[in-house]
């Protein structure tokens, strides 16, 4: 059991950068271009890891801590998620809250690091990032509460694992709603297109990119990797909701997980090439729409 959870975690950690790669490739193909190769994110990470980092003299330890902290918290959060469709590596009652706030802690430390630079531009970026994050969090909790109601469990292993599949025939409509809701939240949480454009470098519209502007070299690599890992974690959560994997072996479910990462990359790419980034006042509406889907699922369960 532990081995299968470890195997899936390993697959997730290795394959996470596939998602942005596939998303970029899908977007390029759909708009009639060839696009960078699929392993481009790996090449980028390798390039950044070999570079040196530059630190401004006004920064302190908070700035240097941020990239490591964001990777560490995301890894811890992914250890709680039942990545192999059965159980998480770590599981305890109420770990759903720990999951949400590990992601929150990573963001908080990243924000601290950005504020540490003393740049007013980064201050603006953090205020944007935090104001949208504060909308994503209730949405995430609505989804978690709904799954808690559906399975009567308080840990992610219970919510997304075997218990869910025993009740699946009864709760299927709301679980599918929750999966869509989680996809919307993933786009917002990981700074993808309708909310933020990862390829833009226009000061007026940047959200997430602003905060990481001063990070360079390995630090930037850590931040990019953590973002990919976060997307992979969300993709794994969605996979747990819509595909049962209890019957598969350790290798099978790890392979399905990697397939799901590729599929979510394609989904993100399709969304990115079919719609433009929303105007900033419209973003709360988009996130609220996702939350409303989750609430709809919750209402169906409470009926």
């Amino acid at each position, binding site marked *: 059991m532990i081995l299968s959870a470890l195997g899936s975690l390993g697959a997730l950690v290795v394959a996470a950068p596939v998602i942005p790669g596939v998303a970029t490739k899908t977007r390029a193909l759909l708009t009639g271009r060839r696009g960078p190769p699929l392993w481009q994110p790996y090449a980028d990470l390798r390039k950044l890891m070999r570079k040196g980092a530059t630190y401004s003299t006004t920064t302190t330890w908070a700035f240097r801590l941020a990239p490591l902290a964001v990777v560490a918290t995301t890894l811890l959060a992914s250890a709680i998620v039942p990545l192999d469709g059965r159980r998480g590596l770590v599981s305890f009652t109420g770990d759903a809250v720990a999951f949400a706030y590990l992601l929150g802690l990573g963001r908080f430390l990243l924000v601290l690091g950005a504020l540490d630079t003393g740049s007013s531009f980064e201050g603006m970026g953090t205020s944007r990032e935090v104001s949208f994050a504060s909308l994503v969090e209730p949405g995430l909790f609505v989804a978690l509460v709904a799954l808690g109601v559906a399975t009567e469990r308080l840990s992610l292993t219970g919510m997304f694992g075997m218990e869910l599949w025993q009740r699946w025939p009864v709760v299927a409509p709301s679980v599918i709603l929750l999966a869509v809701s989680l996809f919307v939240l993933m786009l917002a949480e990981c700074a993808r297109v309708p909310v933020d454009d990862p390829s833009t470098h226009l000061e007026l519209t940047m959200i997430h990119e602003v905060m990481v502007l001063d990070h360079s070299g390995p630090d930037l690599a850590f931040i990019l990797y953590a973002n990919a890992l976060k997307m992979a974690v969300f993709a794994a959560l969605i996979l747990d909701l819509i595909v049962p994997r209890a019957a598969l072996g350790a290798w099978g479910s790890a392979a399905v997980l990697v397939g799901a990462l590729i599929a979510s990359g394609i989904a993100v790419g399709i969304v990115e090439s079919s719609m433009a980034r929303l105007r900033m006042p419209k973003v709360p*509406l988009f996130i*609220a*729409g996702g939350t*409303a889907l989750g*609430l*709809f699922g919750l*209402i*169906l369960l409470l*009926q």
Partner: protein
Amino acid sequence: MESLSQLLLFLVVFTDFAVLGSSRLSACIRAVALQGLLLGLLPPVLFGSVSLHVLALAVGTVLVKAVVLPAFLRWAIREASVRREVDPLVGYLPSLLLGVIALAASFAVANVLPVRAGYSDLLIPAALVTVVIGLIVLITRAKALTQVVGYLMLENGIYLFGLTQLQRVPFLVEVGVLLDVFVGVFIMGIVVFHINREFDSISAANLTRLHE
């Protein structure tokens, strides 16, 4: 059949929220047209049998609600050269919130109503929420055209409610209701057109200034 009707009713609720959340008139009209199509598909799916009564109702509904009325509303937009944006008196986010509250309330109310849906337990909540969201759109959007859209949604909700009693309501009554809606929307469209000619805008607030 059960799960298919469930899916259709889900989609009806989604179109409700699409109208609440969209800022473009044409998007609202498209959502209402889709809703009309779904309502037309519902009776054969719900009852599982295709009698002449059910089939005629389905075809009539699709024709009027998904084809004729949306086309007419689009004509009104084009002819009156209305600005393509919805003028919400209550913002999109609060109206979405109101919609969710309406959804919760209609599920709560549907449980205690002494009506038996008979076909699908989602039917009555979907009907109630469509009525309430139709009302919300009617009240909170300034433009006369969006009010027509709200009125259409209101009527769609009543139609959904009527589906619970379909076996008992004679065909003529159904057709009469459909005709009523058609004429109602038609008159509203003409009125919208004239308000626009008179005031160069279709804000319903101008109605208070109409004189002989």
